[in-house]
Structure formats: structure tokens, C-alpha cells
């Protein structure tokens, strides 16, 4: 008897595991189909660009304060920590290079992406989820207007456009913060700070790769945000869960994508 019991128990566990795995794979496929549908129905968002501009305002402009202030502090901390290490090797003039490369290659896109996910991504999910819960999306369907084209696509493109701009502003503000601490406070030579930075930062290898990263993060975060909102269970609890999932999933996606992109972008050159 105990063997039968054990077997039934094992079987139940395996079934639960299997159904969880197929559930996740199914949802991933659904999200991919949703993205494909969204891209195919982006005509309205691009033709009536005013709709998208409005979303750039909500996702981008309203995120400016948190992005700029965080950028400033991250740059200031980078300069403090960087100076501490560099001066041990007598290379404190390279502080500008360290700050700029860290920001442009990594911290700008990644930290701006994480902040964007928690500030704008969660707002997008909550808004679409609540529109679903209050039947606004159904009302739109009943008015023969496709909610994916009219509500989701402008938010998606608004996020995708905003993210690289926010990352660039984050990096710029970070460099300014690094300048304030490194040059104004610690007293590193301003000429060395800027000229070494100018010589060492490469437009294609560093800046363009940073921009590519931020675009990839923008697509990932906004895709997750609009999908979670559209797929949310239309109750208060469902929308709250969807919003949490957006922040968690987008943060993980950013960090995982960052590793993959960094591996592709920056290891090839060294190997060669």
C-alpha cells in the first residue's frame, strides 16, 4: 500500500511540475504572439503620432526627475570610489574615462532601465490592467476600435522611444556628477578629466553599443509591461499581481539581457 501511495504522490507532483512548465511555455508563446500582433497593428500609433507622443510624455518626461537625480548620484559615487582606487596606481587623471565608460557602457542603460521598469513599466501595467478591469477595453472593442492598436501600441512605442533617451540623459547627468565630485571637490585636473574621456570613449564601440542596450531594454520592459497589463486578471488583486510581475520580470530581463549583450559586444574585440 505505501508503495502505491508513494507512486500516486510522485505522479501528482510530476503532473504539477509538468503543468507548471507547460503553463509557462504557453504564456511565453502567448506573449510572443501578442508582440507580433501589436507590431502588425502599430499603424494607428505611427500614423496618429500624437497618441504616441502623449505616451512619451507619460513614460519619459514624467520619469525625468528620478532618472536625472539618480544619474547625478550614481556619477558622484562612481567618482568617489573610482578616485579612491585610481590614485593608488597614480592614475587619478583617468577618472573621467572610468566614470564615462562605466556609465555609457553599463550603468546608464542598466540602472536607467531598472528605474524605468519600476517608474514607467509599473504605471503602464496598472493603467492597462485597470482599463481592462473597468471594462474600458471591452467598451472600445464594442465601439469597433481595436484596443491593442489604440491603447497598447502607442504605450509600447512611447516606452521604446523614451528608454534610450532616458538612458542617455542618465549617463550625461552621471558624467556631470562625476565632474562635480572628481574635479570640483577632489581637485582632479579638469583638462585631464575631459581630454582623457574624449580620447578613450569610442563612438561606435562604447556609445552605440550603450544605445543598442538601452533600446533592447526599452523593448523588453515595455513589452512585459503592456503584456502583463493586457493579460491581467481584471480584479484589484489581479492588477496588483500583474504590476508586481512587471517590475520583477523586467528587472530580471534587463540583467539577463545585459549579460548576453555585453558578452556579444565587448568580448569579441578582446579575443581578437
Amino acid at each position, binding site marked *: 500500500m505505501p508503495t502505491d501511495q508513494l507512486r500516486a504522490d510522485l505522479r501528482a507532483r510530476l503532473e504539477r511540475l509538468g503543468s507548471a512548465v507547460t503553463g509557462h511555455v504557453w504564456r511565453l508563446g502567448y506573449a510572443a504572439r501578442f508582440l507580433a500582433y501589436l507590431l502588425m497593428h502599430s499603424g494607428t500609433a505611427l500614423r496618429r503620432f500624437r497618441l504616441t507622443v502623449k505616451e512619451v510624455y507619460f513614460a519619459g518626461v514624467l520619469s525625468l526627475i528620478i532618472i536625472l537625480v539618480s544619474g547625478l548620484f550614481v556619477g558622484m559615487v562612481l567618482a568617489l570610489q573610482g578616485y579612491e582606487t585610481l590614485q593608488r596606481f597614480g592614475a587619478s587623471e583617468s577618472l573621467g574615462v572610468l566614470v564615462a565608460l562605466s556609465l555609457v557602457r553599463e550603468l546608464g542603460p542598466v540602472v536607467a532601465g531598472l528605474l524605468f521598469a519600476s517608474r514607467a513599466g509599473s504605471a503602464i501595467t496598472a493603467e492597462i490592467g485597470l482599463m481592462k478591469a473597468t471594462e474600458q477595453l471591452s467598451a472600445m472593442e464594442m465601439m*469597433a476600435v481595436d484596443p491593442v492598436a489604440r491603447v497598447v501600441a502607442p504605450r509600447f512605442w512611447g516606452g521604446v522611444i523614451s528608454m534610450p533617451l532616458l538612458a542617455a540623459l542618465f549617463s550625461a547627468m552621471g558624467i556631470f556628477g562625476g565632474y562635480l565630485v572628481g574635479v570640483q571637490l577632489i581637485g582632479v585636473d579638469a583638462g585631464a578629466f575631459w581630454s582623457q574621456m574624449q580620447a578613450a570613449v569610442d563612438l561606435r564601440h562604447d556609445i552605440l553599443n550603450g544605445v543598442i542596450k538601452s533600446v533592447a531594454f526599452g523593448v523588453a520592459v515595455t513589452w512585459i509591461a503592456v503584456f502583463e497589463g493586457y493579460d491581467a486578471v481584471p480584479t484589484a488583486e489581479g492588477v496588483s499581481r500583474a504590476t508586481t510581475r512587471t517590475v520583477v520580470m523586467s528587472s530580471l530581463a534587463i540583467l539577463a539581457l545585459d549579460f548576453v549583450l555585453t558578452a556579444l559586444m565587448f568580448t569579441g574585440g578582446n579575443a581578437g
Partner: protein
Amino acid sequence: MQQDHIVEIRDVSFGYDAARPVLRDIDLEIPRGAVVGIMGQSGCGKTTLLRMIMGALRPSAGSVRVLGRDAAALDRAGLFAMRREMGMLFQFGALFTDLSVYENVAFPLREHTGLPGEMLHDLVLLKLEAVGLRGAAHLMPAELSGGMARRVALARSIALDPRLILYDEPFTGLDPISFGVISRLIRNLNDSLGATSLIVTHDVQEALGVVDYVYFMAAGRVIAQGTPDEIRASREPFVNQFVNGKRDGPVPFHYQAPDYAADLELAAA
């Protein structure tokens, strides 16, 4: 004669799974120009039937003809073409919370017509005047009372002069004044627009004052039908309990439960 029916439902059955049918053998028709009510308890299948008429669900068996089309056979483009001739009032209005009252009513016009600004402006004010809320055009939905929101939603649903107007629980949560306003509007708008209306509701007494004909549903079937007077006089026990709001009848007061004494463990004592 068939053309005179705006909605025609024949032998329709439906279930999310085969074991639990939600609708069974429904036959129903809505003549042009009439205001028809579908009434019954929550969970009796009336909202499912409404979703079928909207084309959001397809029947497992039978046919649903709406505005001369087979609603079950339409693709998305066909469905949208059909819905442009329909207006729908949702239970709580479903106004777009980020748009003003004016923009809410203008929404279907902007999406579906290329009307110049001035004409669109006149039309929006005309629709708002019809529901008595021209003066509220600049307000946001959050600033409206429940009854006002319902009226704005009504103005929005008639923006494109629909041939068929659907109402999902239009009286829920309204005070007596708002209720009187909404029920008069339903009747007046139907007659002045030359439209046909379908009201799905469990507020029987209120609705019986507005409709021309009633279908009464219980457990997924139409169990009674007739004019409001016929329904009021019905001897069918369920209808009688429902119309008169009796506590006990075919629908018991108590939810199914094990024996009371056994539950309290009195039998053992």
C-alpha cells in the same frame, strides 16, 4: 417578416465545457423598434447571451443573427463592421477615465468618421444635450456621479446613431431619480433614433416599466416570455418569486448545506 427582426436567436446552446451548459435551447427574437428585456437572476446566463449577440462568444449549437448577419460566422473585420451599427451601455458606464466627458462622446466619432472639427463639436453637444449633460462637457469622469456617468456613457453609445442599443444592467446602483432619468432616456432615445433596444437586467420592477416584451431566464433557459402585464400576472413559480421579490420559493433562501443539526454536532450530544 424575417427582416423585421433585428436579433434572431434559434436553438442556441452554449457551455464553456460540455459538462456544464450555460445556455440551453434558447429561442428569442427582437423585433425592429422594440425595447426588449432579458431578465433573470445573476448567473442565469443572460450576460452570456448578451455577449453572444455582441459577437464576443460563439454558440456551441444554433444560430445567432444580428442586424441581418450571422454573428457566429463573422471574422474580426465583419464583427467590427457589425458593431459600428450597435451601441452598448456597460453596467458602470466604462467611460475612458483619461478623457473628458466631451472627448468620451467624441471618441467613436473621431475613430470612425473623418468629420471636420466643427461638425464633430456640434454632434457631441447634440448627443450630450439629449442626455441633459451639455453643461458637463468639460468635466472628467471622476467628477461625475454614478447616474451622470451612466448618461455620458449612453451619449457615447448613441454617438454613431446605432440601429441596435444593448444595455447591460443599466439600473444597477442608481438612486431613484437617476433611475427615472435613465429609464426615460432608454425609451425616448429608442423611439427618437428609430433604434431597437435590448436591456439585460435583474431589476425587474424597474425594467418592466420600460420594456415592450420580456424574456425571463433561469438556469440557462427561457422559462417565460410575454408583455410586462403578462409577466406580472404569470403563475410560473420562479417568475412569481422573482417579480414579487419573495424570500423563499423555487430559489431557496438557504444555499445547499449539510443538515444543520449535524453541522452543529447536536445529533451526537
